[in-house]
């Protein structure tokens, strides 16, 4: 069970709603609620904003494809024993 109560998207201010739309576009998937991590990162836009931009910059197509990078991210999560 999460340490914090994850707020529904509707409980966030308009600026965060924009982040949720970007998240939806990034994953190209229609979530019932934005993923828990998106809602966590939207809690403090001054942290979540630049963190999210750094992630998108790292994950964008370059020498490696986005799909290859998603696999690297999964490997990092596996090596960190992170279930999320």
């Amino acid at each position, binding site marked *: *069970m999460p340490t914090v109560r994850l707020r529904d998207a509707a409980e966030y201010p308009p600026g965060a709603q924009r982040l949720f739309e970007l998240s939806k576009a990034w994953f190209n*998937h229609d979530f019932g609620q934005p993923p828990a991590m998106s809602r966590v990162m939207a809690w403090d836009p001054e942290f979540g904003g630049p963190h999210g931009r750094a992630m998108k910059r*790292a994950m964008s197509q370059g*020498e490696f494809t986005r799909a290859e990078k998603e*696999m690297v*991210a999964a*490997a990092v999560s596996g*090596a*960190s024993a992170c279930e999320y």
Partner: protein
Amino acid sequence: MTGDAVWYEAAQVVGITNALNVAADALGALGMVEDADAPPETRALFAEIRAFYESPDVPPAFRLIAHDPGYAADVWAAARRAYADNRLSRRVKEALAFAVSLTTRSETGTAFHLGEMRRLGVGPRGVMEIVGVTQMFSSYTKIADTLQLEADMGDIAPVDWSPAPGGTPPPPKPRAPEAP
């Protein structure tokens, strides 16, 4: 990256990389087997490893476990299978191994797989891309763990219903009886 086969390959790379790093980083006290002291089968094994990596050096992990030649040969066979070109390219597999080594703070593994990435043609930009992914997801995983977030993105990819290699497809599931 659809289908399970590529994910099995990725998991093999993650696993064997971790296994080799465990030996390379922590088994120094055992001492390395040098060619001059090695029996013929171990020298042959080292020659095969050098050929695979196109290098005059044998990675320390294999020298450290070569005190048991049969064990070292089996570990090498698994490692060669994991790192060789297959559905995933060797280049991508080295990127995975680099990310895993960096995540687990293996200096030996990080240096080795960085060298392999470069040898296989990954440029400075590509290296920084993998550094970026590794660093950002090292952050996400710790945030998720601290807040004990539950996985909620498992249905983003379709299920692969194909059988195991050489196997047969699963039998069709019985249909639920229709309502009268």
